[in-house]
């Protein structure tokens, strides 16, 4: 018998020291905390991502997939439809971001300066974010209808429509918003902007709250007017959050699929076809996964640059290339930024000169109006002499601005609400356009009688809650480890999490489908419960990393000196302090899970397992759309989330204010 001799304590200490020096001081807890997130991201995004790259070198011939080298890439290079799709994607993304930032900033400034009703106004501004994309698209399509849509009706009544034609902002009146190639792209951009304003507004609002009010008071004492205070105090304080929000939003917009798909399917012709639609069409409709993947891979460099810049801001004090990039950015950042903006302007001028000029006019009008309102508010406040935010008169211009903004935000929702209370005949015959006569509940009763709405509701609630808990737990653990623990590979993991943004979800789902099938989770709620957190983890992680960074390290060090383990210190000391941030992340994840459509659409087939957005979509059969029941369902779907936001939006802003927006 051979007796194994236990290593001596000195040997063990030596091994431990060597491990610590190699893996990092906190390697055990670090790896333990990030492992669940890494497993999920690698398994459900990393592997499909690698598979998509492999697929880009293959083509389907009959039932076989054959290796074709770079031929997919060379055929894309010569494909005029692909070139159009890339051009459209750049135009769509650039104009969407310009307007989202501008309107988001105006919304945040208005909300920040409101004294009464801010909570309600913030909840209303958040609505477009909360409403499912299916509902958004259905409503806007109906609003844009040239014959019966609310937009043409309102613009005709107010004579704004003919005025737009006289100003040469549109070519004909009545306008066919989604039918004319020149108007279709601006129209889908408007919808994307409408849906994207809340993200910027809430981030900017949080950043504004974080600005020390003494700075404004000092500037006011020095005689700075509203514009000077905005330029010299507000803007520098918003720089970080603006950059990170723009980068994140740019990546989301660049990879957007559902809004355009549901509005125009890329038409008329290919005037709104984005590269994601091209990839989807090739990969899914024509079963050419290779060409579709190649289309996505071709544009990876653009996403990669955005991610590199994002990483630079999200991981301050980095090492290696990041640190070198830091030095480079510090030295040439301003020049680079202006060069980039100039290059984008030239590109947009080349791609669509007409749209650029018209957008510049609209943007100038928006900024001018905002400045006028700010000046008027400032003037009235000074005139009444009651301090910076004390005058009731000074708030009148703010409320005018708020009312205009809320009109833009709420008008589509009004359309949904009135449609839900019309009869089928009123809807199909386009009677009672802006006011149901009579009001009827028939759409609600029809919806509940003909559809398993309760089951859809229950499934959505279950999936949303479970995936939110999973997402918050994993993101919380990972963000804590990545910001406060030292272990080898931490930065690489942070990078890898950001890389998940590079591939559009619309392309990952075929490899994902195969993986989930092998796990026997296809057509089960588990498929959604495990995939939903994966796609919200990067944002949640970034959000929480900013928050954790803001907490003094001494807190858990003191606890550990008193004998607490790292895990106990995390649980007892840190967790209670980050509750607002966890709640904010939970809201974000909950909204995403509540509204998610694409993955549910692909992974779920059984009626009993459908979620609400999927159920809504399944009510549309071919060319028969039950508008009334869809609108009724939209209201019922949105009410719980709207109420949840009404209750918790304060925590969302608080969470952002304390942590993430400070970087």
């Amino acid at each position: 018998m051979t007796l194994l001799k236990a290593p001596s304590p000195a040997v063990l200490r030596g091994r431990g020291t060597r491990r610590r020096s190699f893996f990092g001081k906190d390697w055990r807890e670090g790896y333990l905390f990030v492992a669940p997130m890494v497993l999920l991201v690698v398994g459900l995004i990393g592997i499909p991502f690698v598979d998509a790259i492999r697929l880009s070198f293959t083509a389907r011939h009959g039932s076989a997939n054959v290796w074709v080298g770079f031929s997919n890439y060379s055929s894309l290079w010569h494909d005029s439809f692909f070139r159009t799709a890339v051009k459209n994607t750049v135009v769509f993304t650039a104009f969407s971001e310009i307007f989202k930032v501008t309107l988001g900033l105006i919304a945040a400034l208005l909300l920040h300066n409101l004294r009464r009703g801010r909570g309600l106004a913030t909840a209303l501004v958040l609505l477009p974010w909360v409403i499912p994309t299916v509902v958004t698209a259905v409503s806007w399509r109906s609003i844009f209808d040239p014959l019966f849509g609310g937009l043409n009706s309102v613009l005709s009544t107010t004579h704004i429509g003919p005025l737009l034609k006289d100003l040469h902002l549109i070519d004909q009146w009545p306008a066919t918003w989604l039918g004319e190639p020149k108007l279709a792209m601006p129209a889908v951009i408007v919808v994307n902007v409408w849906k994207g304003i809340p993200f910027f507004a809430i981030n900017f609002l949080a950043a504004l709250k974080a600005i020390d009010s003494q700075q404004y008071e000092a500037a006011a004492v020095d005689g700075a007017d509203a514009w000077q205070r905005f330029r010299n105090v507000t803007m520098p304080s918003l720089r970080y959050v603006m950059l990170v929000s723009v980068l994140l939003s740019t990546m989301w917009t660049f990879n957007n699929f559902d809004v355009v798909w549901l509005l125009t399917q890329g038409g008329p012709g290919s005037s709104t076809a984005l590269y994601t639609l091209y990839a989807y069409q090739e990969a899914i409709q024509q079963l050419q996964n290779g060409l579709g993947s190649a289309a996505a891979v071709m544009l990876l460099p653009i996403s990669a640059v955005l991610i590199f810049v994002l990483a630079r801001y999200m991981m301050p004090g980095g090492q290696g290339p990041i640190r070198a990039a830091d030095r480079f950015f510090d030295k040439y950042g301003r020049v680079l930024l202006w060069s980039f903006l100039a290059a984008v302007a030239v590109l947009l001028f080349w791609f669509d000169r007409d749209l650029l000029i018209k957008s510049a006019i609209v943007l100038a009008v928006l900024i001018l109006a905002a400045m006028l309102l700010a000046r008027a508010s400032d003037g009235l406040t000074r005139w009444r002499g009651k301090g910076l935010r004390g005058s009731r008169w000074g708030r009148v211009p703010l409320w005018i601005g708020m009312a205009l903004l809320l009109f833009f935000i709420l008008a589509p929702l009004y359309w949904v609400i009135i449609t839900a209370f019309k009869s089928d005949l009123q809807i199909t015959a386009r009677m009672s356009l802006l006011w149901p006569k009579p009001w009827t509940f028939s759409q609600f009763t029809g919806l509940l009688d003909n559809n398993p709405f309760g089951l859809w509701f229950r499934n959505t609630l279950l999936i949303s809650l479970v995936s939110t808990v999973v997402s918050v737990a994993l993101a919380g653990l990972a963000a804590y480890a990545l910001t406060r623990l030292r272990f080898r590979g931490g930065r690489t993991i942070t990078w890898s999490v950001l890389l998940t943004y590079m591939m559009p979800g619309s392309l990952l789902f075929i490899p994902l489908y195969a993986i989930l099938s092998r796990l026997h989770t296809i057509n089960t709620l588990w498929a959604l419960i495990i995939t939903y957190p994966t796609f919200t983890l990067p944002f949640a992680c970034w959000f929480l990393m900013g928050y954790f960074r803001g907490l003094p390290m001494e807190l858990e060090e003191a606890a550990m000196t008193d004998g607490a383990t790292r895990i106990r210190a995390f649980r007892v000391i840190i967790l209670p302090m980050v509750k607002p941030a966890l709640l904010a992340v939970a809201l974000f994840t909950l909204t995403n899970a509540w509204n998610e459509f694409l993955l549910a659409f692909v992974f779920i087939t059984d009626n009993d397992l459908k979620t609400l957005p999927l159920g809504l979509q399944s009510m549309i059969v071919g060319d028969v759309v039950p508008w009334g029941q869809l609108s009724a369902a939209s209201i019922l779907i949105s009410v719980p989330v709207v109420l949840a936001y009404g209750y918790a939006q304060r925590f969302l802003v608080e969470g952002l204010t304390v942590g993430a927006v400070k970087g």
Partner: protein
Amino acid sequence: MDGHDRSTLSRRRLLASGAWVAGAAALSACGGGSSNSSSLSKSVKVPASLVDEAKKLKQKSVRVLSQKMYTPEADKSVATALQNFAKQTGTTLKNATVDPDAGNFVAKQDAAVRAKDVQDLAFVAASRFVPQLQQLGDLEDVSDVVAEMEQQYGPAAGIAANYLKIDGKWWGVPFYTIGSGWFVRKDWLTEKGIKVSDIVSYENARDIALEISDPSKNRYGWGITVNRGGDGNGAIGAVINAWGGSICADDGRKVIFNSPETIDAVTWLADIYQNKKYKKMLPPGVLSWTDTGNNEAWLAGVLGLTANQDSLYAQSKSTKSPIYGKTATLRGLTGPGTPAPLSFGDLTAFVIFKGAKNPDLAKLIPKYLAGGDALLDLAKDSGAGIVLPAYEKVWKSQSYYLHGDPIFKTSYDMLNAKVPVTLKTGLHFPQGPSAGVNAVNQSYVLTDMMGEILQKGTSVKQAVSNANKRIVQAFEQQGLKQ
């Protein structure tokens, strides 16, 4: 706690409790009811021969994928019929619905077959999906079932073999047919002294559409889009065929798209949307319509002519639209290349997927649903013309099938017309099943071609040539070498 805090707290409490109340109310109002639990008010008796056949398959289960059928009543009817079958045979049938227009049906089913986790049985539009699924190797041969069905119910509709028979074998079992054609506002025609029978050819239809148009009264004659979508695809393809052109030869394998006939047809069609003369007959936004566009405009009462499946007719009937009583139907239009309309209706067929767990039980379902009381219930529940028989003897088995609605007889004539129709160019329609044509339609090559002409100003000749290249590529990607 000050007053402000109290009001904030109470408001928040109110909102929080409101969210739970709303959730609970929604849940309790709906009671977790499901379409599968719809009342089994009708209890169709399963034929004794099938109950006997199913005896040896007791305790077995089958997963069925049902194509959505335009009305919730029809979907419920299918679910109810399947439950009846399961109850009376001691088997288990799990039913799910699928929207064929979702665009990812083939990709999803192909992935499911490869993952060995696929439903046993599905019923889907025959011409759109069966050839492509067969080409991908996803389907089982069902020739034995079709032989039995034809023995019992007589020959299947003439189009069935064209859509389902490949290399001498049947890959789908005919289930039901659906009519399609042109819908015309007979009241507008009467006002102008025009008879429905005056509309014979595409040229007639265009000229009459122009004549009955009056934008000041919101009347637009030409309710046909060429935008991306199934309707756009169908409209362009139909015009090309009527001029004597085709995507491929009769065998469904050889691409012959770039021909003088195709160029003439596309030139004629593009002229409608480019020539100012026709502007007043085009409804605003017609070029942005997806598949719902013409339905909505038709039901809104602003269109003079449009083409669709009979689902449009059924929808006007079920919504009690005043348009229903003003609708006349035409089975199709002729063109310079064809002496007879190339309208044959469509067919829905059962397919059994490769890797099905219980194919023997799956094969009993078509025998139960495609005839007898089960089909009659389905036809009645689904509305006017959405479900009609696929076999000769079934048509004659109940007077409802021919006289239940004025449109049924015309559907019967169309679906049972002698095929094939020979074009002046020697092509025969309906053509053979083609995975290539399926792929071309799914990738909207034809609508993209029209987009190039109408939006980018590309010449018709060039656009047809560009489309031809894409079509060749699509066929080769399906393994059909050119």
